[in-house]
């Protein structure tokens, strides 16, 4: 029995060591992906918040949608291989026409309203999808992070033998190491299904490129898009002879007549203005995890069939289900909100994981002040940088270089922390972020030309979160140097 206990103890030690190794390897990149992912869950609400002036409507008639499609393509005056109509949804009650040459909002009559320029929201999304790297490498990186997150989850469970005994201990006002340990372990355990699903679906989305690449080489002479066809439907055969614009209005009218129970969210016209053009109508299915079903129509708006995401082979349905599961869009606003909170909690888990490792190093007599300061700069500097690039976008316009500025700010924060580790204290960083969030909430509300309920909630939440952070920083200041850690022991024996 003693042997059994010893073996179990050794397993826990090794699992903890492996857990720490994974955490250290990926923590900063994973933190950025999770922070931007928490925001990406709100993408529709953020787009509406970023561009408050665009025309809004609960729905649009098929005739107006057709007019919008034709007028925007004609206005751009250049050929395009695809044209998309985003139809109003609960999160984004706007119609957007997107082609290879740009995107534009239209009003309820289908007339041009304004160019779509939600560059800050796109920046956040691309930070999450690709870490702002080129698409292939970015997806590979985020897919790898997904696998490592799942690996950290498995080793975390193995390293946690008192998982049930401590299930509800949350001593946030205890000693710093204890409070962080409680936060890390409790959130890690109770959000286990969320973290596992998020990591695994993220890994599938990221590593999928490699799998499709292999299949394309094997069966389709390297034609990448052809390997998608068995799952998402094939592209139409090209026939480039000119033709009048595809009749999306007829397709929408057909959907309203034959599939009234499903809400149409997106219309895609492949090769618009050519004889080979085809219409794909995406309709969401309630109480299903699939992102929707694609209904196919020819250029005249005649129904051809559907792809089978809802009732096709189980593999097709399974793959179509990972998107909603990953982004939390399967249950309306309550699930979106829950995913946002879980996402922030996951950021706290990642943050406290590395902080605990640094604290343990310090308590063993091997402090790493530069590393500690740099980790603090990543944790508090990255949300601050996201806030700052929002203001850059507001004042400099849609052409502002958000990506280099974001990474420049983050690198600068890390550099400052490395050069002067004692200077940017956590309290100051928290206070700065709090001020930034508060100013963003108040400033946006004051400057915005329209105040839909979701945007007001975002503004109020930002102001509230900012106030809480500033108050916390002030409280810590009052407690003075009590929190400062001074050596209290003689060197520990190695």
């Amino acid at each position, binding site marked *: 029995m003693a042997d059994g206990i010893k073996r179990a103890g050794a397993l826990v030690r090794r699992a903890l060591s492996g857990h720490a190794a994974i955490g250290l390897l990926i923590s900063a990149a994973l933190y950025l992906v999770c922070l931007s992912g928490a925001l990406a869950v709100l993408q529709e609400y953020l787009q509406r918040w970023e561009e408050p002036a665009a025309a809004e409507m609960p729905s649009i008639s098929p005739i107006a949608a057709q007019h919008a499609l034709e007028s925007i393509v004609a206005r751009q005056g250049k050929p395009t291989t695809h044209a998309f109509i985003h139809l109003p949804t609960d999160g984004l009650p706007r119609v957007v026409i997107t082609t290879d040459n740009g995107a534009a909002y239209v009003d309820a009559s289908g007339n041009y309203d304004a160019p779509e320029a939600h560059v800050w929201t796109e920046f956040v999304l691309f930070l999450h999808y690709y870490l702002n790297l080129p698409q292939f490498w970015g997806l590979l990186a985020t897919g790898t992070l997904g696998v490592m997150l799942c690996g950290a989850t498995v080793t975390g469970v193995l390293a946690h033998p008192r998982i049930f005994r401590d299930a509800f201990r949350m001593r946030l*006002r205890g000693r710093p190491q204890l409070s962080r340990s409680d936060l890390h372990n409790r959130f890690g355990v109770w959000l286990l299904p969320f973290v596992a699903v998020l990591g695994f679906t993220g890994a599938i989305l990221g*590593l999928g490129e490699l799998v499709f690449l292999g299949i394309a080489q094997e069966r389709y002479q390297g034609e990448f898009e052809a390997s998608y066809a068995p799952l998402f439907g094939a592209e139409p055969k090209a026939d480039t002879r000119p033709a009048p614009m595809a009749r999306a209005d007829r397709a929408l009218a057909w959907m309203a007549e034959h599939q009234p129970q499903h809400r149409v969210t997106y219309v895609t016209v492949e090769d618009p203005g050519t004889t080979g053009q085809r219409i794909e109508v995406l309709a969401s299915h309630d*109480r299903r*995890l699939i992102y929707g079903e694609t209904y196919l129509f020819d250029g005249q708006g005649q129904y051809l069939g559907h792809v089978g995401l809802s009732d096709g*082979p189980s593999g097709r349905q399974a793959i179509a289900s990972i998107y909603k599961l990953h982004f939390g869009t399967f249950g309306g606003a309550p699930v979106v909100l829950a995913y946002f909170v879980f996402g922030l909690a996951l950021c706290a888990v990642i943050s406290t994981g590395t902080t605990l490792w640094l604290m343990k190093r*310090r308590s063993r007599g091997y402090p790493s002040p530069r590393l500690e300061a740099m980790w603090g700069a990543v944790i508090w500097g990255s949300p601050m940088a996201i806030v700052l690039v929002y203001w850059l976008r507001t004042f400099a316009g849609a052409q502002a270089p958000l990506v280099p500025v974001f990474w420049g700010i983050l690198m600068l924060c890390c550099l400052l922390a490395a050069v002067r580790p004692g200077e940017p204290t956590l309290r100051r960083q928290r206070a700065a972020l709090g001020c930034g969030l508060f100013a963003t909430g108040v400033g946006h509300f004051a400057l915005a030309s329209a105040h839909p309920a979701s945007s007001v909630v975002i503004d109020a939440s930002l102001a509230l979160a900012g106030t809480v952070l500033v108050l916390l920083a002030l409280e810590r200041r009052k407690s003075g140097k009590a929190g400062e*850690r001074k050596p209290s022991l003689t060197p520990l024996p190695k």
Partner: protein
Amino acid sequence: MTVLALTGALLLCASGPWLLRYGWQYRRPPVIMAWVAMASAAITLMSGEGAWGLAAGTTATMASASLVLAHAALTTPPPGCTTRDRVALPLPPVPVSWPDACRRLGVFGIVVVLDLAASLWLAWTVQRALFRAGISEANTTALALFLCPLLWLAAASWQMICTRLAAMAMAPLAALILGSIVWLTV
């Protein structure tokens, strides 16, 4: 599934963590009730609404658990006498151990590079074999998409509790050999 039944099942899911908290460490009946409530709700949701139901139920449980944790954080009193975390006097820095650095590099190479290659290879060969055996392309492609990260995860999780590099290398080597056998035979 009716709205009422769905609401009831979701409420059962949400009640689980609160019942667990109520019986935590003291009362066995509420703990048993909690697990029964969550299990029966999961079965009801799965049978009535499929994967969507299970996802919704799990989200409700996690949201409820987050509230329980928030309640615990707010109500746990601060310790009367805070003892500081043990902080040792800084020890002289340990010189860089090159063998250890090489070992860490080796772990990275095996867990990240070799594992990815091996899991991708095995997933690709398995889907190819099944496709040639007549399984629909949608299912074989989906299988490969799921299998690749799953194999990598399994290998990495196992490697993280290994102590020697040679033991770590066994998992990707096994996957590479298995994938090659499948590739050569089908």
